[in-house]
């Protein structure tokens, strides 16, 4: 098979001013090698300490919502260190939100993530913000949803890591649904 470098498409000439030369460069490249800082951080910072600079927060714009009104909320995950950090998670599902302890407001399991480790990676000082919405419905079976009762409901967020709660990788907020 003919390769592109055998095609003589590029004309090289040491004498000609506008053609690339045939000579090899006499000096070595002087550019500074870049440091793979996230790999370095993974090597230097022990796993048990990696959660320390990471904060998790969930907030809603208001405390009270009318019945049937969608409840928007913002999830903020932040790395306070000026170094990249990666937190190992128990599955490729990196974090999850719950309503009254039900994952994504579903009373039935909605998915079964594969049994392998994932990584929640932060750049230095990175802040990740996700906007979500709970439409005041609970999924009660694979195909059925039911409206939430009036009263207080807790929206929680947790990084899907082992001992997330004791390591401070969770947060929650309460909203009231009023008639």
């Amino acid at each position, binding site marked *: *098979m*003919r*390769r*592109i470098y055998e*095609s003589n498409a590029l004309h090289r000439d040491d004498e000609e001013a506008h053609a690339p030369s045939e000579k090899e460069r006499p000096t070595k490249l002087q550019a500074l090698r870049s440091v793979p800082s996230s790999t370095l951080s993974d090597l230097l910072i022990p796993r048990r300490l990696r959660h320390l600079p990471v904060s998790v927060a969930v907030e809603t714009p208001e405390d009270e919502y009318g019945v049937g009104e969608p409840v928007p909320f913002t999830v903020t995950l932040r790395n306070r260190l000026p170094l990249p950090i990666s937190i190992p998670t128990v599955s*490729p*599902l*990196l974090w999850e939100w719950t309503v009254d302890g039900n994952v994504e407001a579903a009373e039935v399991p909605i*998915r*079964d*993530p*594969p049994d392998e480790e*994932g990584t*929640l990676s932060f750049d230095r000082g990175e802040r*990740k913000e*996700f906007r*979500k*919405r709970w*439409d005041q*419905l609970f*999924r009660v079976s*694979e*195909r*059925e*949803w*039911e*409206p939430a009762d009036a009263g207080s409901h807790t929206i929680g967020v947790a990084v899907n890591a082992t001992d997330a709660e004791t390591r401070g990788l969770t947060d929650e907020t309460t909203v009231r649904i009023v008639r």
Partner: protein
Amino acid sequence: MALLEVKDLTVRFYTQEGVVTAVDDLSYRIEKGEKFGVVGESGAGKSVTALSVLRLIDSPGRIESGEILFKGQDLLEMSESEIRSIRGNEISMIFQDAQTALNPVYTVGGQIAEAIEHHLDYSSKEAKARTIQLLDRVGIPEAEERFSDYPHEFSGGMQQRAIIAMALSCDPDLIVADEPTTALDVTIEAQILDELRELADEFDTAIQLITHDLGVIAEVCDRVMVMYAGKPVEKAPVEELYYDPKHPYTVGLMSSIPRVNDKRDRLQTIPGVMPDLVELPSGCSFHPRCPFAEEKCTRTEPPLTDVDSGEEATLGTEHSAACLEYTEGLSQGLTYSVETTGPADGAAAQYVDGDRDE
């Protein structure tokens, strides 16, 4: 035995924002020599479905569950070397963008011949002869001379033809064509579709044609599956889908096709956009855009149902749709109508939505 049977296929992508369920519980069947169309908007999961058939889903995507039976063998259970012997040989793919699919540093002929040499054990001389024959068959002029041209020396239409020649090179039983004509102008599109149809008839090859153009489907396919937000919403023979669509989304797609003899001032469109697959709406995923949606559509997700019997659809169901109208029934029903104009053979159908959204 069907050529390809996809059963309860679920493909998910684990991203930072959440889990994208690109294909959710999808089942379909393609018979030998059949031309099967998959249609839907961008992001409906059509391409992911196609890539799953060839097991080409890359990280962070995963085929989480389901079976893909090709001639009775589950492709998902096969080893990497077994699947490689099927890819390009028994199942081949025509990718969306021919320029990206071709390797720029190898000659076009060399790339086609490589597949023939690898799968059919031809000598390089025999492979070259067959490649030239194939290039000629797909309408590349002076095929012998163009054999050693690089992809950049081909026009867009010629590159697409070369990809079709590559797909046909090993006489596959199934060609998965992922929007093969999207990057081309309409005249070339018509030529390529004609060629694809002729070649498929000649070699008795089945085609899974993915497109967002219903006109292309009408031209080429025998049966169609309409997808929305990763799920099939309607499956039907092509004539029935055009003249008796059962799902509001299909009706919306049909009514948004511009027609020359159309008397309406404005083209009807489906309001809104496809939902974010990370956060699907509750109940029927189409309810926020559906002019016939009722409260129960927000609470219950309709299964794919046989539109005649009202029972849950199976792989063998002729015409099925996923709308509560066919299970529990909507209180005001689906009030659209289909008007056909012109002579019966070349009739054009017009879709008039109900006025409940006004």
